[in-house]
């Protein structure tokens, strides 16, 4: 993989809006973002009701209020992250391009489930009232790529626009797609990352699956006693550019992306389709490290979520592939953000590498629910 530069980070998360707030929160203890009384939906008290959401989320201070009326929560999260990322990278200032131009900038972002909120809202109208009453202005929100499409509309981005969906690994897989498209000269900069929005549907689905943490006293990503995950939300979009070109325009390079790998292991005939593969992650890490000096790898930034079924194989693969490096768990701060998780993992790695105390090279890992796994290598700029 040709090294790419991360020149800007747009973070819209329960840890705060903006890169500085996110980094500062990661320097503190985990856990502060979780609540048992979410504002994004109402549900009766339940032992599994503990989520990391952006309380009373209001995008207007960042993106203004014009045109937001029919956008769903996922779109709003992405719009905020995009605006913050473009400004942080010095691509835009006060909404206007100051580097590159509309035809040069694209966006590639992941979501695992799109807007379940929008689907549920319209389904309820169709089933309880009449499908003829569906609001056509809200219907596009049900289409998975709409939220990322709105980013291009709001920010006048005319190069490629792509959505990736691959469960928790999607946020890393988006970097691969963006990298191939940058290499092919399809854009000069690509807003890259992922997002997932909190909704009652998402929470109820994971609750019904028995995947949520109901024992807060032992919850910790990577802890074998921990039996469930906690859902989070947010959007994280990073401006990815060719490294030499970024330096050429005088951009601040916050980190370099130097390796990516993905692999899939089919379930054995006796296994259910839902399975996690340590072998797939070990191969993904191996591919990602091709051409990277392994001795420089100073930490793994994992996708460990507290759900033992997923955490066990991921821990095993990290140990097998990377040995005794420290393993960090951004989901202890953020919760499981699914389509956003890979991107938040990358952002956390950039933040931890930047303080200089965590070495200078991180492998970000993620496992999917169906045998897929991905890894990305990020290093401090040289």
């Amino acid at each position, binding site marked *: 993989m040709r090294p790419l530069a991360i020149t800007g980070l747009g973070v819209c998360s329960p840890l705060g809006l903006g890169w500085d707030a996110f980094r500062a929160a990661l320097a503190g203890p985990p856990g502060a973002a979780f609540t048992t009384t979410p504002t994004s939906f109402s549900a009766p008290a339940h032992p599994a009701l503990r989520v990391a959401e952006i309380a009373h989320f209001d995008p207007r201070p960042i993106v203004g209020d014009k045109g937001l009326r029919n956008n769903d929560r996922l779109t709003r999260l992405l719009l905020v992250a995009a605006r913050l990322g473009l400004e942080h990278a010095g691509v835009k200032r006060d909404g206007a391009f100051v580097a590159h131009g509309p035809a040069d900038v694209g966006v590639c972002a992941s979501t695992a489930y799109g807007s379940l909120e929008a689907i549920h809202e319209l389904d309820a109208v169709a089933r309880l009232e009449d499908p003829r009453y569906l609001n056509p202005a809200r219907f*596009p929100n049900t289409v*998975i790529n709409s939220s990322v499409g709105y980013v291009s509309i709001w920010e006048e981005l005319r190069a*490629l626009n792509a*959505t990736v969906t691959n469960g928790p690994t999607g946020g890393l897989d988006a970097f691969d797609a963006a990298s191939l498209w940058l290499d092919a000269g399809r854009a000069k900069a690509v807003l890259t990352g992922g997002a997932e929005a909190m909704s009652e549907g998402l929470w109820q689905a994971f*609750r019904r699956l028995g995947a949520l943490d109901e024992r807060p006293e032992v919850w910790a990503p990577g802890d074998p006693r921990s039996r469930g995950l906690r859902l989070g939300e947010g959007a994280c979009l990073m401006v990815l550019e060719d490294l030499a070109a970024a330096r050429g325009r005088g951009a601040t390079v916050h980190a370099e992306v130097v390796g990516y790998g993905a692999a899939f292991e089919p379930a054995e005939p006796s296994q*259910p389709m839902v399975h996690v593969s340590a072998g797939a992650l070990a191969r993904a890490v191996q591919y990602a490290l091709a051409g990277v000096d392994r001795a420089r790898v100073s930490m793994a930034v994992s996708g460990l979520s507290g759900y033992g079924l997923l955490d066990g194989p991921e821990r095993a693969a990290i140990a097998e592939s990377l040995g005794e490096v420290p393993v960090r768990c951004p989901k202890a701060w953020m919760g499981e953000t699914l389509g956003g998780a890979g991107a938040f993992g990358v952002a956390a790695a950039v933040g931890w590498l930047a303080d200089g105390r965590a070495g200078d090279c991180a492998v970000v890992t993620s496992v999917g629910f169906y045998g897929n796994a991905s890894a990305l290598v990020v290093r401090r700029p040289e």
Partner: protein
Amino acid sequence: MTPRVLVTGMGVVSSVGLGRAAFWRSLVEGRSGTSAISSFDAARLGRTLAAEVQGFVAGDHLTATETKRAGRCAAFALAAARMAVRDAGLHDGALRSERASVVLGTTMGEADICGLLDGRWIVEGPDAMSPRVLPKYAPYLLSMETAQAFGCRGTVLTLPAACAAGNYAIGFASDLIRAGRADVVITGAAEMLQELQFAGFVRLGAVAPERCQPFDLDRQGLIVGEGAGVMVLESEEHAVRRGATALAEVGGYGLACDGFHITRPEPSGAGVIHALRDAIRRAGLTADEVDFINAHGTGTRANDAVESTAVRAVFGERRVPIASIKSLIGHCMGAASAIEAVSCVETINTGLYPPTVGYVTPDPECDVAVVANVAGRGRADVVVNHSLAFGGYDAVVLFAKPDRLPSPDARGALS
């Protein structure tokens, strides 16, 4: 050396036939797949027709376990993939490799499962969502099911790019091969007809009452369709090594985004023009060398006018034959450009242009050379496949007769 990317096998699930032979025969005979919707009651919506895949029995194509597990969208994808792999002459087990990948597109994936779960929740409460059914819903399951079925161990990815999803998937799959990351990729897209999505398109005013008439002055909209189109793409070296027959080469593709409106195309067609020119340029060709255009051609007023504007801007006075098979198979949403990619390759192999049926009155706003009502015949070495989509997506893939294009390295860019 950058490898050529070859199409070596194809499979189709469509309203006009299962398998590439039946599908193609129906297209050239101008047989429409439109019929009264049978999977749900659409009477209240005032639109009752769709190009529904009728007579599809998942168990004819999937194992018993797969049939039990897969939603209709994944079943379409897997059935088409099995046809494509068989068509490519790949034996069982040939794709159990780290060098075999799956990249598929869709708009919504398992919309039936989502609708089922949501319906239970709305009517009976959240506890009615079955933990046995929940894992069957994810928009990316069609790719996972396909990789699982063939034992592919490389990259497995889903690109939900709405009505351009097929072209996005084929383009990205070709990138994986050109970048040396895969030898074989199963790629394409699948979509199923579902009540909420159908109602949404009706409420957008996009659905025609009786028929889809692309480029006609009196066109009234699209007919919603469903199905899957899947291709086996291989590096030339891999295909030659196993003695495979190349059906076509993936020459290049272009992507752009209008950044204008979530459902309406940008009136100047700038994005489509860019995507079309880029696909041609990356194939190492000029616009003069394109022989046939598979139009996005939805039959909606805005789409067909903008697409015609783009065609005139790129090809000038040259009247390149153009056809929209959406007049026959409906608009298969995420699957559309993948199914149409199969049609493009059939055009290259037969020299036949499928017809645009229902074309009666030319529209001055659509001043293009429509292949009207009956199939045409002509030069078909180089074919472009247009797709425009929700979100302002513009994606064009160029297919060419094998050995028609310069070598990828001579083209000077990762196409």
